């Protein structure tokens, strides 16, 4: 009933994993509950630190999807620009890709013997 899944070089069991997570989680919660002496409720410590800027209203603080991972896409511009350009959305290109790949595979299969 432990759900042991042999993977060839070991095993995986979700049940054991959950038990372990429970044990470790309880430990963490226990340690956390012991508390930090210098923490005081309802003081400056509760507020987020934004370099002294005024806190924005909740409605305008939501980050929309195109701004997430902006740095990631900016850094990988050299990879993304040709890749996005490749997806032209033109049906001629779609069929050309199929024909070209079929030709390449025909050659590969034919040559390899």
């Amino acid at each position, binding site marked *: 009933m432990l759900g042991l899944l042999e993977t*060839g070089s070991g095993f995986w069991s979700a049940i054991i994993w959950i038990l372990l997570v429970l044990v470790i989680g309880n430990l963490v919660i226990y340690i956390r509950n012991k508390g930090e002496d210098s923490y005081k409720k309802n003081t400056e410590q509760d507020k987020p630190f934004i370099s002294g800027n005024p806190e924005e209203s909740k409605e305008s603080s939501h980050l929309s999807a195109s701004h997430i991972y902006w740095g990631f896409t900016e850094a990988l511009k050299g990879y993304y620009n040709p890749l996005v350009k490749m997806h032209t959305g033109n049906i001629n290109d779609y069929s050309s890709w199929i024909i070209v790949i079929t030709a390449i595979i025909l050659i590969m299969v034919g040559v390899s013997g």
Partner: protein
Amino acid sequence: MNLSNHIPILIIAIPLLAAFLVPLISRINKKATGILTTLALSVSLLLTIVLAVKILTVGPQVYVFGATSPSLTLPSGLKFPIRIMFQIDAMSIFMGLITAVVSFLGATYSLSFTKKYDGVDKYYSLLLLLTVGIFGMEFTGDIFNFFVFLEIASIASVALISFRGVDLGEPAEAGFKYMVVSSVSALMVLFAIGIFYGEYDVLNIAAIASVIKYSQLDKIALGLLMPVLAMKAGAVPMHMWTPDAYSEAPAPITMMLVAASQASLYALFRVVFSLYNISLNTLTVGWIIIIFGLLSMFIGVTMAIIQKDIKRLMAYHAISQTGYMLLGVGVGLAVLANPEALKNYGITAMEGGIFHIMNHAMYKGLLFLTAGALFFRTGTRDLNKMGGLAHYMKYTTIFFIIGAAAIAGLPPFNGFASKLLIYESVYKFNPLLSIIAMVVSILTLASFVKVFHSAFLGPKLPQFKEVKEVPRSMVFAMAVLSCIIIFFGLFPDLIVKNLVHPAVMSLIEQLQYTGTVLGGM
């Protein structure tokens, strides 16, 4: 009349009958069409489960059309079978189970989802035909019959993709693109069938497999079949139709399209394993499939990260996850001629790949359904316009978390189990492949964090004040998929031992496949 012998055909014939009845029923009562569809597909699901139990205990089944007995493959004096037949072994029924579950839940979900649309009777009729096409592709033992079912599935899915095309331009565009690529690919399949028929004078897959020589003509046939079936499965660099079609189809249809793509994937595996097996150059063909897999995984996931349309993003993930299946099975194929390596890690890699097919159908289906639920309530698929929906749609949020965790391979969900099988076995074949697979998994998690953050988290937005939880039938479909995902995650060993391993063995052992029809040659 003993109906238990007729289960293979009833699985297909009952949805087919319902598909033809639906237009007539809709003249009397429009609402009855959806209920009839769901009923027919639930019968089909039950029969598939019964057949699966039978196959896994007794062995592969054949069903010969129009013969004097369903199992009479070789009438007196014939060396090769001439009749059309269904040949269902562990791998076919594995795919059949996926199709049955997905189509039943798709119909249930549609009950509420299609309320806004006109022409619902045609929608249900086409949905049933699509199911029939997918089932047929998986069950058939005749290569020309496979072509027919492939075309049935692609015509039905094109009509469903462009279902909203009467009012909008984009669905029509997506349907056109899918129709062009799928008819070109189907014609290439037909050409390959012509080559087989000209060379061996038979159309039965098992009969061809028993005499195949891997001559120059067979190489051409393989070179035509492999890329087009990989294309239908959505392998990079022939994947461009996938995001278009998946994002424009109605959500339950997108879930069915995933199953349809996987039926093509199944056909690819059937061709290389059951039809050619070790007669072909396993290393070359295996590496071709592995390279397809690598490209699909990496390009799929990196393109997904930058998408703004939620269903387009998920469609790119579907490509990326297909890469895992191709990778796992490709490694199995590359070492097929090497019994020691096959036993050592090849079978495990294939188990991972095949298990991933089922997992992917479940969690990707669930994710598309949650995307459909968001679209149903908010009317937009643009992630930039969404936000704070977790306040209004609690169940959908929970289902989305389950699906996202499963696709990202977080333990203890099912995606982790199959990905772990792939990582550990592929590492022994080539460590680099395994590392790329892990990186892809991390990027998958990253992009779903983006979706979760921008759609569900954040403050309540004023434009979504009216939004509430989706209707009950949609919640039901998503809940069933979530339960399956959690069950698979908790007890992956049961599934792998009882369903996946027999499926892998039925792929690897060609003699078993041919012997079912030709009788222990």
